[in-house]
């Protein structure tokens, strides 16, 4: 192959007049795609406390504690500081009670602030059915 000295020069010169390839973050932001995997969020009204999400989460980021056995009250804690944003919980959930939002600027000064807590009473399966019909 024939060698051409300084073959790169025209390309370099062309770039002087081009727009920058980056955006001026944080003043300008790029849009993330619609099904971006952000933070897992619970819709408490749909959860049947089957604990599939707890079992499948690879980072042990979901915790469900029973607050009251009689009233069927539960607390779900999603530790977003441990979460690796894989969305396996969303996939494991049989009732689609979990979804991923598109938030990506979640940095804070304390990992405790990343915890999300949901206190709710469980929907009986029959309740859900009656709601649907």
């Amino acid at each position, binding site marked *: 192959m*024939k060698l051409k*000295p300084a073959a790169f020069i025209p390309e370099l010169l062309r770039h002087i007049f081009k727009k920058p390839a980056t955006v001026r973050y944080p003043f300008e932001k790029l849009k993330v795609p619609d099904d971006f*995997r952000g933070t897992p969020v619970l819709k408490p009204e749909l959860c049947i406390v089957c604990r599939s999400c707890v079992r*499948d989460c*690879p980072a042990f980021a979901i915790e469900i504690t029973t607050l009251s056995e009689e009233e069927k009250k539960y607390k779900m804690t999603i530790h977003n500081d441990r979460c690796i944003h894989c969305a396996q919980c969303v996939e494991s959930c049989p009732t689609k009670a979990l979804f991923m939002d598109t938030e990506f600027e979640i940095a804070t000064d304390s990992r405790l602030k990343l915890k999300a807590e949901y206190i709710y009473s469980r929907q009986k399966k029959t309740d859900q059915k009656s709601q649907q019909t």
Partner: protein
Amino acid sequence: MKKITIPIGPQHPALKEPISLRMTIEGEVIKDADIRLGYNHRGIEKLAESKTYIQNIYLMERICGICSHSHTTCYVQAVEALCGLEVPKRGLYIRTLVSELERIHSHLLWLGVAAHEAGFDSLFMYTWRDREVVMDLLEIISGNRVHYAINTIGGVRRDISEQQKEKILEGIEFLRKRTEYYTNLGTTEPTFVARISGVGKLPKEKAIELCAVGPTLRASDVASDIRKDDPYAVYDEIPFDVCTADTCDVLGRVVVRVKELIESYKIVEFVIKNLPAGEIKIKAPRKVPEGETVSRYEAPRGENIHYVKSNGTDKPERLKVRAPTLANYPATIEMLKNGFVADIPLIFAAIDPCICCAERVVELIDVKSGRSDIMTFSEIKRKYFCEKKRETL
């Protein structure tokens, strides 16, 4: 001239990850090299034994940030083989699509690194800028730029829409033009060619003898590619060529990777145009029947091997990973021999090393006696902590 040994690393400005290289040099010429690993050991294989098969997908993904899809695919293929699952065609096609997009991003990244090590920083900037195009495509498909998490046992997790297909084709068209330009540039720019040709020689016989893999092997004129030799997913249905070069040096490794980029564009286009309709996954059992299997995969850096042994529960009994970089170390030593000290970063970068992926065991060497041992943690505790205590008493 007197021979002296100089240590490079574990921490060194020329190294991106910790590794220890000991070079025996005579003047400026390297006479012998020794590679010491173990500075980046993460205990992933042990951890995998305590996680379920589903959780392990995400753990395998984190072996490497660049070939994350390679490790998950290799792993799920093994588990699917153990369960006897027949993955739907569409699932396999999407898997192949993501693996080729990954190869594109990895090779573009490598091209930039090689250019940087050779002192051609404008090429480095431009390839990395163009790489953003394929990163964005991966993000659109999977929801994340680095850890795509598209694989699951029994298929893939996300489908591809018509809109996404169009975007992918557009992106690939752009990248093809850019790559053609870089091919032209990389092989005609005299300073760049002079810097990389003849550096890091690995003759064909040596490459075979030392079991080199991937582009390193193909640059020594050995047409070996797992996608052709032992086709997995749908590679037996896809037309593509195995790219080789016969110069056996860093220039050859650049040429092989650039040619592979062009092949990958072809594969992506073929996959998009021939994507069959149907399901993307089938349901997998939680418990995997007893057995053992080996799965092979052509990662961007070479052959990746996963060995999985199951004992009938929902957790693997043993999971062994052989990352491609590990296979290329013996060949690297051969390449370094009789080279110059100034070529070390370039030669090393040319195998596209991923050091922490290759870290599998920690070897303890007694400094006084030179005795080497592989120990369990309780032995370490007994030996070192107890001895310390006794001494202080």
